[in-house]
């Protein structure tokens, strides 16, 4: 039996888990694991032809369970997601294994558990990405859910509560998916993709409806789609720093991967589009698109109100997922390319942002936006990384986020969807507002007395951040590089491919060439700098030498404008934050609690989460065995 490249990769990944498990307590686990991630990445790069239209690589491992064949293989889609997964895992782990780890240990954290959880996450994600049929997909799905729970819950306290909430959601999602799989099995008689493809074409509308709802709900929960988004922000924000960078970068995208695989590849956008909602003009695709758009808007505007840097970023993570889904369900060549490219772009800048924020926490001990300020003079490199990240997140040139959002906008324009277009732009504007709040409250404004003597983040943390910043800029300058991979993904799932170039996209109805745009932009900066710096030298003054209506400022006065940053805006929209989804969640929870109370005589348990959890576990166990 010869090992295929995929086997090699999975093997390395498994070895990483084992190394973290058995050697992690004694030896410097961080460095070892990081190197092993590097090896995994190398072995993934050996599969690079996949990213340029190569044939799928199967695994030699095939299992037979209950008459079902379980198989694993890698195609362009899997490779693309695996690249992002391993890249972010490598950089997050690298980031973690220096000074951050020591500090984490001093603070009472369990470094071993952290690395183990990371390794488990990577391993399970690879398993999921490699799945060759629906059953292996489901197994991978469960593994990912539990591995994620481990990472989220490890910080204890608030984190555990958030993780419990997550796993509850995940179990509900799993049940939905399981239901979907069961339904598919009933109609197709098999869980192999080929069989399903043929079965889908013969399915009736109600049947298809059922499946679409079940799958998109199940996968959507992982992705944080509205209205199942509530778990995500607290869970990611409470994960230890590099872990949140990793999770924020890729974890939710597993949901997108599954949606891509099942809804786009197996069911086909055309089939979904044929599902009309009675008495309205919209169909299931529009429904998904609107869900995507609301997923963009609401979490983004919720992020604007956050006062904790990590919560703010985590909420944005949910919002950005909306762009990906939006691009995918528009599903023309540019839209799908934009959505898929955004997965890559989002992973890069989200990881960079979480890392920069973690660097700030590492130095100052807080991520409270109202307790920071003016750090740019102390942590200029972290500032640069955060700046690059937020430009990417906001989708402004010259960073990579612009390209993917541009593609999504163009597809909406081409397809003639004005409302979706406007809604997407509202999301972008909201993003700009909230990321400015982020960078302003951390790095700009008044430097507080207690931060007078802090230093720049250590190099072990700085280098991964700088690498990410470089990737963000380079893929912004040359979007053709990731677009090539995206194109092969599109081919693999049966979507049309845009006419991409190294610098962007060519199209009859308006093209984009980032090389020119960025070139001109930097030329403009150059001329601006020439004009500016030719005008005589300037002198830096102390921050207390500042206009204060003619008064003298002293260091003990807090004059940083940070809390309720967009007060004027909140006068209008503040009343719209009603927490309806929270209310919905609470009412469902109390309903379950009420039911469990009713059954107290039997189970003697009133904890809804535990109840749901155990039920779900039981169901899964019953199914799998």
């Amino acid at each position, binding site marked *: 039996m010869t090992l295929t490249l995929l086997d090699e990769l999975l093997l390395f990944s498994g070895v990483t888990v084992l190394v973290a498990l058995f050697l992690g307590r004694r030896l410097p686990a961080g460095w070892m694991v990081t190197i092993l991630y590097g090896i995994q990445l190398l072995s993934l790069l050996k599969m690079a032809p996949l990213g340029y239209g190569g044939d799928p690589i199967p695994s030699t491992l095939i299992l037979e369970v209950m008459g079902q064949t379980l198989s694993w293989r890698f195609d362009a889609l899997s490779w693309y997601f695996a690249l992002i997964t391993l890249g972010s895992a490598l950089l997050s782990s690298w980031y973690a294994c220096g000074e951050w780890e020591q500090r984490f240990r001093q603070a009472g954290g369990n470094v071993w558990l952290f690395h183990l959880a990371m390794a488990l996450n990577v391993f399970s994600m690879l398993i999921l990405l490699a799945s060759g049929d629906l059953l292996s997909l489901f197994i991978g799905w469960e593994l990912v859910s539990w591995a994620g729970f481990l990472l989220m819950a490890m910080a204890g306290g608030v984190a555990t509560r958030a993780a419990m909430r997550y796993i509850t959601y995940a179990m509900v999602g799993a049940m939905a998916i399981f239901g979907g799989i069961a339904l598919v099995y009933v109609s197709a008689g098999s869980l192999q993709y080929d069989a399903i493809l043929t079965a889908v074409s013969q399915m009736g509308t109600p049947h298809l409806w059922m499946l679409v709802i079940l799958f998109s709900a199940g996968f959507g929960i992982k992705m944080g789609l509205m209205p199942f988004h509530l778990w995500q922000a607290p869970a990611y924000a409470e994960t230890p720093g590099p872990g949140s960078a990793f999770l924020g970068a890729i974890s939710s995208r597993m949901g997108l991967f599954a949606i891509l695989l099942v809804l786009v590849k197996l069911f086909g956008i055309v089939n979904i589009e044929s599902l009309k909602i009675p008495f309205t003009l919209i169909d299931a695709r529009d429904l998904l698109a609107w869900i995507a758009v609301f997923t963009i808007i609401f979490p983004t505007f919720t992020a604007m109100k956050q006062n904790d840097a990590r919560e703010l970023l985590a909420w944005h993570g949910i919002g950005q997922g909306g762009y990906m889904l939006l691009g995918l369900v528009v599903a023309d060549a540019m839209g799908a390319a934009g959505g898929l490219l955004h997965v890559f772009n989002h992973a890069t800048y989200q990881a960079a942002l979480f890392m920069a924020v973690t660097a700030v926490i590492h130095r100052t001990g807080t991520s409270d936006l109202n307790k920071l300020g003016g750090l740019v003079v102390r942590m200029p490199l972290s500032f640069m990384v955060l700046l690059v990240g937020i430009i990417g997140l906001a989708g402004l040139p010259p960073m990579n986020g612009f390209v993917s959002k541009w593609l999504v906008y163009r597809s909406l324009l081409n397809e003639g969807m004005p409302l979706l277009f406007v809604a997407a732009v509202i999301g972008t504007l909201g993003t700009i507002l909230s990321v400015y*709040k982020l960078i302003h409250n951390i790095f700009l404004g008044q430097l507080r007395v207690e931060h007078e003597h802090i230093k720049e983040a250590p190099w072990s943390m700085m280098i991964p951040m700088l690498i990410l910043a470089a990737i963000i800029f380079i893929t912004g300058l040359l979007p053709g590089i990731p677009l090539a991979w995206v194109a092969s993904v599109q081919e693999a799932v049966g979507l049309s491919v845009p006419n991409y170039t190294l610098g962007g996209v060519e199209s009859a*109805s308006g*093209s984009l060439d980032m090389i020119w745009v960025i070139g001109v932009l930097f030329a403009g900066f150059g001329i601006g*700098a020439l004009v500016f710096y030719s005008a005589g030298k300037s002198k830096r003054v102390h921050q207390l030498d500042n206009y204060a209506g003619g008064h003298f400022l002293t260091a003990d006065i807090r004059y940083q404008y940070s809390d309720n940053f967009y*007060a004027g805006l909140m006068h209008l929209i503040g009343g719209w934050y009603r927490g309806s989804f929270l209310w919905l969640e609470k009412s469902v929870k109390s309903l379950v609690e009420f039911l469990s109370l009713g059954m107290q005589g039997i189970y003697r348990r009133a904890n809804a989460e535990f109840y749901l959890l155990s039920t779900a576990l039981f169901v899964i166990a019953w199914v799998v065995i």
Partner: protein
Amino acid sequence: MAPLELIIELVLMPLVAFIVGLMMVLMMRRIAAKLQRRVGPPFFQPLYDIVKLHGKRTQVSHGMIHDIGIVMAMGGYIAAETLLPVPGMNGIAEKGGIITLLYLMMIPSLGLALGVGQCANPNGSIGIARALTAMLAYDIPLVIVVFGVAYAAGTTNLVEIIATQQAGGFETWGAVQMPLLAIAGLIAMHASLGKQPFEIYIAPAEIATGPMVEMGGKYLGGLFVMQSFQLYTTSVLYVSLFLGGGTTWFDFLLKSFLVLAIPVSIAYLFPRYRTEDLLRLMWKWPVMLGLIGIAFVM
């Protein structure tokens, strides 16, 4: 296109924009003076101001980002000018298109926001918060308008948008074809200029001129340059979208100045809104007009 020619265009376009922008600043101040029954500044006043500010002997900086912010504010507009076709010069308009242009026009705001943030002045920060809020307000009708125009033209390429308008003379102008969008665009443009009643982020009596509070010398000079670029870009963009661009420099400049004169004349007759009133206004009328306009287009 020959590379040399292109390079000459890329140099000339911002230069022309700057000079025309200075004249627009002058026009704005002269219109204000006329409405206020006074004489107004001399012809070269905008230039005097900028040269003087750049020639200041001591310049107060609050740090690197303060400097970079101003460079970004100027550079972003310089870059944006090359994406904005003028008669006889297209620059790289075909390589970016209108969406890119709109995004490039946000770069100066972002640069300014960063620079002001570093100044550590609460007035400036409030000003930036208000400026970004105003951006949220006027960009929504603006993108509706842009969507409508681009959809009607079937392209995001500004050169083609202008060409389609010029194809049939006056009747094919965007303003004639899509009057509702043109009105919505005018309101959005007025708001994007930040003049009364939409002047929420300058507001001297409230936040001591907001973002400009710590800007002096070349920093303020940079903002003056940015202002002239802003006036030029906004009015030329409007002319390109709705008034068929320009076939000759004469009608191009005539249209641009006339378009700019409308909001500027209105501005000095109004006080400023509160932030939420601005939002309410911008999200109500122009958005409604724009959406109806799009419905007609589609």
